């Protein structure tokens, strides 16, 4: 579960792909606030809104890492601040155990991070995104997808789309 199998070769123009699961009430709000304050942060993170960090199923993380994300960020309300009172306490245990399991299997710790970011902590959201992006960038592509068939793989000679780029009128 790491970059080692790539022989360290990082494709040109590679940008880390990171998914952030953010709870609606705190971190998503904080991310919105970062927008309202016109803060600037790297675009490598895409936010997926969930109602509560307690909704965060570890299986989503495996899916994301398996299918091509280089890093996963899970964010929720600070302990004690959960809109649903206790969701983040369960999330804290689950994510802690799960993170350790992933690291045990050889995932670099920086690739899966969990943070508590409140609705007011726009700056923390920005800083977290910046640091996660930089950490994952330093690690390089995760590339667990290599076992998943690349759809560009062998296909019959392409007779239809090949000349799409040259409209008939031009060639005539």
């Amino acid at each position: 579960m790491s970059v080692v199998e790539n022989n360290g070769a990082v494709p040109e123009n590679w940008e880390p792909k990171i998914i952030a699961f953010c709870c609606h009430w705190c971190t998503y709000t904080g991310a919105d606030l970062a927008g309202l304050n016109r803060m600037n942060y790297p675009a490598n993170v895409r936010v997926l809104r969930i109602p509560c960090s307690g909704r965060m199923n570890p299986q989503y993380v495996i899916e994301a890492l398996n299918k091509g994300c280089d890093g996963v960020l899970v964010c929720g309300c600070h302990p004690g601040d959960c809109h649903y009172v206790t969701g983040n306490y369960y999330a804290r245990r689950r994510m802690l155990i799960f993170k350790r399991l992933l690291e045990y299997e050889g995932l670099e710790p920086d690739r899966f991070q969990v943070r508590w970011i409140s609705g007011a902590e726009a700056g923390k959201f920005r800083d977290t995104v910046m640091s996660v992006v930089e950490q994952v960038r330093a690690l390089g592509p995760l590339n667990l997808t290599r076992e998943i068939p690349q759809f560009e793989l062998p296909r019959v000679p392409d007779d239809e789309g090949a000349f799409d780029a040259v409209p008939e009128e031009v060639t005539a």
Partner: protein
Amino acid sequence: MILNKQKVAALLDHLSGARDVFVPATVDGVAKFARYGEGVQPDFGMVNTTMPPKDLLFPQTQKMYHFDVDANGSYRIHEYDESREQVVFGIRPCDMRSIVCMDEVFLTKGFVDEFYANARDKLLTVCVGCAQAAETCFCDSMGVDPQMAPNADVMLQDCGDAYLVLAQTEKGEAEVAEWSAFTEEADAQPVTCDLTLKVDMEGVVDKLEGMYDAPIWDNLSIKCLNCGTCTYVCPTCHCFDISQDMRRKDGIRFRCWDSCMFSEYTMMAGGHNPRPEKLERVRNRFMHKLNFFERRYGMSLCVGCGRCVEKCPVALDITRLIDEIGAYDA
């Protein structure tokens, strides 16, 4: 013509120049047919690999076609043909018999499975006869000669220090003709292979006809875990599922091994399952091995390789089942 065992390695080096050669070997702790090459040490002393050679013809996951959309937004389908010239060297007579079974399934009855057919056409089979048997081997009881596989392209009968080389097909003859650097014109006597595990198949097929509702199925199936181990290590189990992976509008349709032991296998949309319990599933599997296949294709679907006997986590043993059928008195 004989092939001295000392020369096998050189022969393999020769063969693997242009083709993928698969040999019995233990890789990462798993005994299977592995591509001959660096780090793969052929082991012809091993009686049976844990994993059968069926994935050379019928991979656990096989891409069938890829689909995408053209510039007008219409779907296009592009078939895969990933078959290539392969040699399986060191396959055992029991596993050769399993290829007979699979040939029947995939190549007859109105429809030829092109993916299997392509791979089969490009496969050269070099069978190595058995000089000794494992505790769980019972192929001779199932009509397989441990030193002879009639359908192998090349049969290598174990004669102690050397193999007696028999080219049995056109393909085999052409192949063996290329081996002169490694073979010698000599005769040798194949050693006899004694199997300790015996079952009596006499009358079992017919007797099973009347035993569909016999209580032995319940007694047997109750210890089954319904895992897929027996079906995945079985050289003749060929059930598959068809599924797809998607990426936006692109995707691949593939088939993959499936197991009749899984409840999901026959589960229909809407929740009805014609084989809801272990009883029905275990009965179907063993009936298929010992009766249904015989009725349809005229041969047993069990080749006596003993893999399931060895690997079943609960020792649900097909040889005991055959004994019980023989002893069954309605």
